[in-house]
């Protein structure tokens, strides 16, 4: 875990509202694992006050990439950063995806900006078979940067499968019948809930969760997610953001 004063190297606009930001942050770049995230201070003032959490999208040498959507004021400010601007970044945070173990095919399922952690995951999964399901509102929101073997699903049918990404996965999964698969899911809660249901007693499945966060590293207890077994909560920032799909209750 480091706090690095990084420098923006480039900013690129992707499909839809998405942006790709490349920043120089050597310590984080060298230690980050797919599925981990960073907590970024988007302004130098008290407004917005708190850092904003973003999955690491990709890392190479001294640089880290973030892929994000404009949601509110914080992401708007982030989208306005220019090469040379400074950004205070805290990371790597969280556990990341568990890529070890006994499976031959990795199925990546992402909804919207939920694909953000997939490029680094894809690289890490070298040697495994990969199928990536990318869901989006419409063709002009489909993001493919850094992913491979992509099956697209759009809500309006303007590209690929006509429907949501889980339905798409269901209609395609028979092609993987002989494979030993592990699912990696990331996206909005309703999508993850549907995926969780689909996976019950059927698939080895890891979900990357979101939560409102104040600190991002376990000191505020602001990011609970209900345990499926026993009483109480996990902390998304510390125990997650990636959970075995049967370990949590998604609200």
């Amino acid at each position, binding site marked *: *875990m*480091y*706090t690095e004063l990084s420098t923006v190297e480039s900013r690129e606009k992707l499909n839809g509202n998405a942006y790709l930001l490349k920043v120089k942050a050597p310590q984080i770049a060298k230690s980050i694992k797919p599925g981990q995230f960073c907590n970024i*201070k988007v302004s130098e003032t*008290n*407004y*917005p*006050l*708190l*850092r904003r959490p973003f999955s690491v999208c990709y890392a190479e040498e001294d640089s880290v990439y973030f892929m994000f959507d404009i949601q509110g004021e914080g992401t708007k400010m982030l989208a306005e950063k220019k090469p040379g601007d400074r950004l*205070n970044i*805290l990371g790597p945070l969280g556990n990341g995806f568990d890529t070890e173990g006994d499976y031959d095919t990795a199925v990546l399922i992402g909804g919207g900006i939920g694909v953000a952690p997939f490029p680094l995951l894809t690289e890490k999964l070298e040697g495994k078979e990969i199928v990536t399901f990318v869901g989006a509102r419409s063709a002009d929101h489909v993001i493919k940067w850094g992913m491979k073997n992509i099956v697209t699903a759009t809500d309006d049918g303007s590209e690929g499968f006509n429907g949501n990404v889980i339905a798409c996965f269901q209609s395609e999964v028979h092609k993987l019948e002989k494979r030993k698969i592990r699912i990696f899911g990331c996206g909005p809660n309703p999508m993850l809930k549907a995926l969780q249901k689909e996976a019950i007693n059927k698939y080895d499945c890891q979900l990357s969760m979101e*939560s*409102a*966060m*104040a*600190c*991002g*590293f*376990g*000191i*505020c*207890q*602001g*990011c*609970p*997610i*209900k345990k499926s077994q026993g*009483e*109480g*909560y996990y902390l998304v920032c*510390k125990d997650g953001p990636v959970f075995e799909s049967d370990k949590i209750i998604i*609200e």
Partner: protein
Amino acid sequence: MIDLSVQIGKLKLKNPVLLASGTVGYGNEIAELTDLSKLGGIVTKSLSLKPRIGNPPQRVCETSSGMLNAIGLANVGVEVFIKEKIPFLKKLNTTIICNIAASSVEEYVECTRILTREEAIAAFEINVSCPNVKDGGLEFGNNLQAVAQITNKVKAVTDKPVIIKLSPNVSRISEFAKAVKDNGGDAVSAINTLVGTAFDIWTKKPKIKNVTGGLSGPAIKPVALAKVLEISRNVEIPIIGIGGIMDWKDAAEFMIAGASAVQIGTVNFINPKAGEEIIDGLIEYCKKMSIGRIADLTASYEI
């Protein structure tokens, strides 16, 4: 050399900067990002007798220059704290103040009675901003008699310094400080969070599941300073100033307004090194102002 040590009643701190309860857990995570041994001390997350799982999400939300939280006093309970957290805390080489929260006067006393045996604990901070379960959920912190009684009874079971952490959600906070003093309390901490809320205008639901939360961060600094000043002008008791401190300038402002030491909370989430930086900043400030003992800053306001 500037003498940074400060005295909070019989508690001596190597410098006046403490990390606030609920914003550093039990010290382990933040220890990776900052050198806790440099700080005046840390105040551990509010402990109750039994573990508490805390409130359902959403527990936090941002506001303009502030944040709301309703964690629900999630904590491991006294027993686990002693077994699992104290061994780590001991190694930190900083002063450990143990914060206690309870739903009845008896629970406050019982927690203190058990914890006072622990050598690692230098002092207690009693968080009275919890609902009094017996009296129907009203906050102890808004009830003068309750604060007096808690101070008195907790003092009876420990020789360690007892600091009462006051609620700002009252008309005259100095009356509460006076009750603490009159009942033998060693110091007061001011302030805990202000009651606040926020709604999502599209769903019409509160943004915090618990409906209301506690407001902290720079937004509340002027209110916190006014409370510290009010106590300082009316009651002779050491004050630990808390509320919206982001940097050494804010810390100095609290000391000028009457605080003998300060605690920093929300800023730890944003800048985990803030405590160390504040100490460095205060040293530079003292040099510029030709202040030899930082304790001389306390209540040095010129009104």
